[in-house]
């Protein structure tokens, strides 16, 4: 796909998102503020009642910073509101027109997805800056401009990985009459096993060693730790390569689903 076309598709999706401005801001602000409040009170209660100064290697300011970063980056990684876009195309029969376009369907969909994420990325950056202005950065957390810059590509790759992970459940729509449950299922699993609900270092050692081999760690836990300056450059490079490798693996896994599904597809919609 030509970069010009990719950017054009992105801009269409971004403009679409802004057509309901009130909706957009209500979703963003309420979601983020409430998530932060819940995290704040939860961790504060945990530290108070356990009497410990660190939990799973985290101090209270550290774990709160982690939670802030998770809620800021999580929205970007999960991507706009297009998680059902592929299955909707299949169900409505609108996939047919994409098949006639001189461009690959998944690039098309990813361009739309990226367009939906752009405003959320900018919003997250603005809200992150606001939080830093109001509360500052805790002294125990080694966040630097470099670590934040290093986090940006990990978040974008995390977004690509989440998109790739959601492709297979979406393609099940060729055979099943409703795949909404599968998308929600993916979200539950990635939130817990990816570090979206709590840092993975809080899990028992044996679970951590299993989770390290899974792709989910690159969705929330890894980008947050990179942003916090807790990852060396070598670990960062390794993490980036592994997350790209997982993108490739999930893409390969999706191929047979797509090929078989195409044969199944009638184009009339359900």
């Amino acid at each position, binding site marked *: 796909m030509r970069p010009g076309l990719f950017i054009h598709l992105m801009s269409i999706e971004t403009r679409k998102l802004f057509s*309901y401005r*009130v*909706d*957009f*801001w*209500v*979703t963003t602000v*309420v*979601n983020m503020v*409430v*998530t932060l*409040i*819940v995290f704040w*009170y*939860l961790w*504060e*209660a*945990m530290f108070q*009642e*356990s009497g*410990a100064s660190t*939990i*799973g290697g985290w101090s209270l300011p550290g774990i709160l910073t982690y939670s802030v970063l998770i809620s800021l980056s999580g929205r970007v990684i999960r991507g706009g*509101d297009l998680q059902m876009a592929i299955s909707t195309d299949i169900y409505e029969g609108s996939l047919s027109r994409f098949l006639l376009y001189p461009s690959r369907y998944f690039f098309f969909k990813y361009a739309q997805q990226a367009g939906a994420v752009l405003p959320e990325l900018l919003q997250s950056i603005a809200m992150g800056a606001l939080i830093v202005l109001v509360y500052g950065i805790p002294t125990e957390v080694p966040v630097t401009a470099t670590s934040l810059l290093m986090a940006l590509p990990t978040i974008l790759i995390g977004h690509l990985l989440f998109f790739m992970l959601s492709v297979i459940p979406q393609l099940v729509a060729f*055979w*099943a*009459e*409703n*795949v909404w*449950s*599968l998308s*929600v*299922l993916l979200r*539950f*699993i990635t*939130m*817990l096993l990816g570090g979206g*609900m*709590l840092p993975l270092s*809080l*899990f*028992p050692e044996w679970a951590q060693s299993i989770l390290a081999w899974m792709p989910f760690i690159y969705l929330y836990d890894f980008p947050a730790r990179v942003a916090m300056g807790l990852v060396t450059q070598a670990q960062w490079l390794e993490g980036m390569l592994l997350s790209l490798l997982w993108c490739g693996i999930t893409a390969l896994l999706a191929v047979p689903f797509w090929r078989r599904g195409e044969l199944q597809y009638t184009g009339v919609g359900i």
Partner: protein
Amino acid sequence: MRRYLRLYLYFLRFSFSRALEYRMDFWFRIVMDTTFYAVELLFFTVLYQHTKLLGGWTLDQVFIFVSGYLVIDAIHMTVFSNNMWWLSIFVNKGDLDYYLVRPVSSLFFLSTRDFAANSFVNLLMAGGILAWSLIRYPGTLGSTNITWFLFLVLNGAFLYYILHMCFIIPVFWTHTSRGMVMAFFAVGKMMERPDQIFRGWLRRVLVTVLPLSVVVSLPARVLFEGPTPEKIVHILGVTACAFLFMAWFWRLALRSYSSASS
């Protein structure tokens, strides 16, 4: 009353026959909800590896609290959730007219017509988890406490519906409910945490104006601490006030409804 009961039985019959048409979705929903239950229980299990108490509760108590929440969520998914989803679509397409001219309460009709038969199995599963968490509880709970708790869990399911509805009704003015629904699910996270972790003004809000902690956290307190008249009156009073507010808000919204593609 009998007319409403008969009508609801028709809804049930229709919903079950439709669910059997979509068998794969039926199984997917079961897997999804089972995963949700597992995630909720695992989350607290991991937290309790690092503390003995959270919000003043032990892991065994939190299991009962979470199970209560799972039952409420399952009731909501089974009885109300689909209807909430359709409401904003009806408002925007002007399809609400069809329901407004029916000789029954429009709020009743629109809130209950689509019974999610495919979530019914999950309701049984959530009930099973609640029974398991009550049986494995090491202390003595007493039959009075358990009876009150179960009654208040049902009340919590009704309150959950009221709160959800209050977040959807603005669709009559905003034309899209996405933002408000997302906001509801965001604030709903507070419902899934013990009320005692919240302090100060936030806790006061959560047990009165935005009674998310009244849904399941206060009923769990009734179970562990006993059913004092203050607690019971508080929980039922807040629910009654919330219901009256919703009914008023609904009537106000209907006055703003201008039929097709409003």
